[in-house]
């Protein structure tokens, strides 16, 4: 009896493999988001895990609200990167939300910590800024907004892990120089403006050097109170 069940089960499994169940019409692309976002994958990876290019960020597992805000900012030209501006210019907002949801749901493992060539002192400085900030210069700890595990918070605050130092420092630089902006009050612009070049190098090196935590999902909305108002994370 049991054997028969197993044989039937195997038989069904075989058929399931041979004739994959899908809504796909003959000669049509798969009706999936994975197929629809293939244009994203040469730079961001099949699951949004990132690629070997150190300037292209990981998207997987970032809060959908954050990803949606970025897609809108690229579409409207507020965030400037011509290859992204060009791709998104004529796509509808609900579709951008679907793209954001898709990458937010992906959970490929975080990459191994990036090798770095900075000194112990620089890493130490990065650790201090990330973990405690610098109250004298009104620099909050990264973790006070991006979460104790630096995995971000729903809906609008991104995790900071799995990114390369080049990407982190280029984005912090863009905030400092005002070429990357967000909804007012633009909290990251305020924070980045207080950082020196040396701070940016140290923070980028330290963050990229963090090992993956056990749980990589962002914290739920309202899990902790932000130290100041932020347009990207409305109350």
């Amino acid at each position, binding site marked *: 009896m049991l054997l028969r069940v197993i044989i039937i089960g195997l038989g069904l499994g075989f058929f399931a493999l041979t004739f994959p169940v899908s809504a796909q019409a003959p000669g049509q692309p798969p009706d999936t988001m994975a197929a629809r976002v293939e244009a994203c994958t040469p730079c961001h990876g099949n699951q949004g895990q990132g690629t070997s290019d150190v300037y292209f960020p990981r998207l997987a597992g970032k809060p959908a609200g954050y990803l949606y805000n970025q897609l809108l900012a690229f579409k409207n030209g507020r965030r400037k990167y011509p*290859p992204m501006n060009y791709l998104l210019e004529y796509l509808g907002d609900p579709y951008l939300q679907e793209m954001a949801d898709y990458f937010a749901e992906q959970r490929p493992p975080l990459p191994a910590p990036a090798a770095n060539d900075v000194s112990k002192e620089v890493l130490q400085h990065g650790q201090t800024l990330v973990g405690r900030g610098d109250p004298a210069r009104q620099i909050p700890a990264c973790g006070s907004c991006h979460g104790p595990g630096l995995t971000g918070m729903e809906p609008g605050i991104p995790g900071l892990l799995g990114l390369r130092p080049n990407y982190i420092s280029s984005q912090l630089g863009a905030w400092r120089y005002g070429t990357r902006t967000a909804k007012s009050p633009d909290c990251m612009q305020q924070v980045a403006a207080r950082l020196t070049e040396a701070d940016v190098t140290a923070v980028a090196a330290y963050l990229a050097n963090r090992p993956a935590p056990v749980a990589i999902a962002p914290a739920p909305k309202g899990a902790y109170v932000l130290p100041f108002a932020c347009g990207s994370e409305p109350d």
Partner: protein
Amino acid sequence: MLSRARILGLLLLPLLAGPDARAQQPGDLVNRGEYLARAGDCIACHTAPEGRTFAGGRAMPTPFGTLYSSNITPDRETGIGKWTTEDFYKAMHTGRFPDGGLMYPAMPFASYTKVTQADSAAIFAYLKSIPPVNQRNREHDLRFPYSNRQLILGWRTLFFTEGEYKPDPSKSDEWNRGAYLVEGLGHCGMCHSPINALGGTSQSDAFKGGLIPMQNWYAPSLTFNREAGLGDWSLKDIADLLKTGVSARGVVYGPMAEVVHNSLQYLTDEDTNAMAVYLKSIAEPTTRPAASSTALPTTESSLLISLGKTVYDARCASCHGAQGEGQPPHWPPLANNQSIEMESAVNAIRMVLNGGYPPGTEGNPRPYGMPPFAGLLSDNEVAAVVSYIRTAWGNRGAPVSAREANELRSVPLN
């Protein structure tokens, strides 16, 4: 002279201006005006990114400097709030401001001149009904001597013929409606005609295709079947392309994606079909010889094409098919696709480098995208794969060089 025109204008004003359009005209005039403003794609230029609708201020780079579009909201101080219906018709029909000043031909009055007085009045009634925005027009930033507006007189002499569309009685109403939309409000000729050094299009070259200045996209000929001439397309495929951005024969990207997104998708099926009927009819029989000549030595091009097949099989065939058959409408066919075979390879190279999404439309709200390969392929590989798709499966395009591919890496994307 100018002041005389002004006085004359003032005298005529009470006769022609009529009462306030919004108060007096029925709502359906405004609705019809909104529809026609869509057909004219006014929003594409007269609204800045993240700006207020129709408040202008969009930068429009031209070979002569940067123009900034104007505020066409009914604000009395900074918009067209003081204009009359007649002023607006004059602007559309003659390319002149109410004071007689000359408009730069970036405003497609050479096409809009064909719009009827009734349609112009409807568009004006609509523009009068939208919320006024107080936003001053930005000064144009044109290089000398182009900053001298009197030069426009020369342009007008060469390239502008004033006059409403005259229906061709030997053709059907549908054909005439299509011609009216394509040649008038649609202002298709602004891109789909060769732009000469003087920034104009001569009548005999209408719809013969051209490289769009500053954008470096090639707007294919609408009359030549080896480009985007639609002579051997079905009416349904043409209408699908205009309305949804995708079709069994091809997909729109780049500047044409903008047109479908902001304008054509909103047209009624009757109007889209009328445009299709007209566009199909203006295709000329193929007279030019096949573009088989190439600047590349034969051995070099055959090496390129064999590398191209390797790249194609690895990168492209999974969507576009081993024989270039695609999975239309979402993954366009490459075999027998005019946009790939045409003399200018600019669009094909750009698509390989930068990828692209067709526009999101009501008929195709979740388009499939083409991945950008700029970071994955060398200039040589890009040239190879484009040469391959231009010559495989019976396609009759010419191979392209790595230099052509390289040159297009640095052109502005949007």
